[in-house]
């Protein structure tokens, strides 16, 4: 029997070979695919590494084999292939202050008693000897029956920059809280309410005594007092609606009841060049500044008054110096121009004499006023009012023995701390005036009393003389060269000098008077 290949067998063989070849081919392309896929995966993996900058690790707990990827070199300076690839190497490089806590926490996790994931922040020693803040996060990929971890993988993230930033923010917050100004941030949360205070530094407590907690997370208007709201709320609303800076200066009270001046300012802020919902607010103490300003304002007012007074003084003095000089000039002119008789010469000489006397007295009075006005501080001493009155009575003895006035005194305050020459001059002027402007058909009564009232020493001087029509002369009574009676011997300076002397001693003087009834002067001084 001839052995020959059965055609069917050949066909089967061919099919078998083809199938084998096909399978082999398939096998090889599959392998290539797998390799390509793996390469792709590695590429992607590397890309993620690059993006996250995280160092990956894998720890086989049973074998105590710990491997890191190549970023260990870049981030921390260690070649991952040349290190002792075990957990001890890693633990040795954790900051001594952190290492105990970290290892306890990690072994707790490994024992299966922790959470699903493990994370810890610690300081990790770099190859160059510096420490970096690291956030380490790990996950179990293999556990035994008891839940103990057999294998885990994780990442180490360098958080030094974040840590630094956190530290910097803390410092900044401290600095802001130490600043004397109150600084706050507002956020426009919805359009129905005013912006809300989302941050305020501690200075609010130091400056105004307000507790931060009472105003944070509340709209700005709730932090304002009713008085401030009434005064500024409409303007504040308008400024906020228009996104405009708004500020005011106001006298406010702290919770301790102290009065202080503050400047309150808010302004909208832009974030990266665009309008935002945030506002910055500042409150600062301007008390000293304000007090100085108010002081300056009152000083200016005082100077204006003084200046006007001086202008008035110069007009009036020039008038009163010019008047007698005009008389002298006129009379001499007449005498030279026209030949006067002997009788006329005597008349003229008498007029010249009166004019020169008047001129002399006027100049003396003016000197007195200028001296009072020139002196900034007046020397004071303790004076017995009784002694001074007695002395003046002696000085005026001629007219007093002629007029025989009835002088009654009642001194509850006997000793005064005043300038001697001013006080003598004041009392002399008052008594002389009473003698001069007495009613001729009546006995002259003069009453002088001193007493304490509201912490002030009061001196009342009253007479029953002819009085002054105050209705008509109210503003003029203490003015310079104001005469109220037709007396050739009055120059209209007495009360002006008295007022200046009283005021130079920080006192006040007022007058009450009725024509034909009398006059009462009330002087007050600080004790």
């Amino acid at each position, binding site marked *: 029997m001839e052995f020959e290949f059965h055609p069917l067998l050949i066909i089967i063989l061919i099919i078998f070979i083809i199938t084998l070849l096909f399978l082999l081919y398939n096998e090889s392309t599959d392998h290539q695919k797998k390799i390509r896929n793996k390469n792709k995966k590695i590429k992607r993996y590397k890309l993620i590494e690059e993006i996250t900058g995280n160092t990956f690790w894998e720890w086989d707990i049973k074998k105590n084999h710990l491997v890191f990827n190549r970023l260990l070199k870049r981030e921390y300076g260690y070649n991952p292939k040349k290190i002792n690839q075990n957990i001890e190497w890693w633990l040795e490089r954790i900051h001594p202050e952190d290492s105990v806590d970290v290892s306890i926490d990690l072994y707790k996790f490994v024992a299966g008693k922790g959470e699903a994931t493990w994370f810890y922040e610690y300081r990790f020693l770099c190859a160059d000897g510096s420490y970096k803040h690291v956030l380490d996060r790990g996950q179990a990929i293999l556990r035994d029956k008891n839940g103990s971890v057999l294998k885990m993988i994780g990442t180490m993230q360098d958080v030094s920059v974040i840590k630094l930033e956190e530290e910097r923010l803390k410092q900044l917050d401290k600095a802001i809280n130490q600043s004397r100004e109150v600084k706050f941030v507002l956020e426009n949360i919805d359009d129905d309410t005013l912006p809300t205070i989302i941050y305020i530094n501690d200075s609010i407590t130091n400056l105004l005594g307000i507790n931060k907690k009472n105003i944070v997370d509340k709209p700005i208007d709730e932090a304002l007092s009713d008085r401030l709201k009434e005064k500024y709320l409409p303007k504040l609303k308008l400024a906020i609606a228009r996104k405009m800076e708004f500020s005011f200066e106001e006298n406010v009270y702290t919770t301790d009841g102290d009065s202080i001046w503050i400047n309150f300012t808010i302004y909208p802020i832009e974030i990266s060049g665009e309008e935002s919902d945030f506002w910055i607010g500042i409150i600062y103490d301007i008390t000293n500044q304000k007090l100085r300003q108010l002081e300056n304002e009152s000083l200016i007012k005082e100077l204006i008054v003084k200046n006007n007074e001086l202008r008035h003084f110069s007009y009036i003095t020039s*008038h*009163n110096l*010019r*008047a007698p000089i005009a*008389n002298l000039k006129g009379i001499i002119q007449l005498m030279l121009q026209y030949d006067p008789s002997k009788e006329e010469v005597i008349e*003229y000489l008498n007029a010249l004499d009166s004019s020169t006397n008047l001129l002399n007295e006027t100049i003396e009075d003016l000197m007195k006023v200028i001296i009072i006005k020139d002196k900034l501080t007046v020397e004071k001493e303790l004076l017995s009012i009784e002694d001074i009155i007695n002395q003046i009575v002696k000085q005026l003895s001629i007219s007093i023995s002629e007029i025989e006035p009835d002088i009654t005194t009642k001194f509850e305050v006997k000793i005064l701390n005043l300038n001697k020459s001013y006080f003598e001059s004041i009392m002399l002027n008052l008594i002389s005036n009473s003698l001069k402007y007495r009613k001729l058909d009546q006995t002259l009564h003069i009453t002088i009393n001193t007493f304490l009232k509201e912490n002030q020493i009061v001196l009342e001087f009253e007479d029953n003389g002819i009085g002054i029509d105050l209705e008509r002369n109210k503003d003029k009574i203490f003015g310079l060269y104001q005469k109220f*009676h037709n007396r050739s011997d*009055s120059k209209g300076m007495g009360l002006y000098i008295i007022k200046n002397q009283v005021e130079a001693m920080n006192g006040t003087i007022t007058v009450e008077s009725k024509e034909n009834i009398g006059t009462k002067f009330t002087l007050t001084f600080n004790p």
Partner: protein
Amino acid sequence: MHILYIDDDTIASFFFKKVCSVINRNNLVINIAKNGKEALDFIKKTDVMPELLFVDLNMPIMDGWQFLDHFKEINNQQKEKSVAVIVSSTLNPEEIDKAKEYNNVVKFISKPITTELVEDLLNKYCKASNA
């Protein structure tokens, strides 16, 4: 021809009278008042309207301005012919300006008054009575 000189300065009044006496005019009647009130009283009492009034400003009881204000209110047919001259030693520009508010004030002169000045005024404002 009536002149009323109103001034509280007795020497100035004495001097004014002397000036008038040396001018030596006929029919010159000079009256002196020590203040505005005396002047008003004089005009009311005597019913004489002076053609020429000399008014000092700073006087007790009623000063020159108050006098001029009251004078405005007087009803007298002769008043239109009457003119006032302010005589003062003041240098205060406010007062000099204020004088312009009064129609009957024709001059603001500084003391002392001279004979020439009085003669000038008489010639200017008192011609009618001269004739």
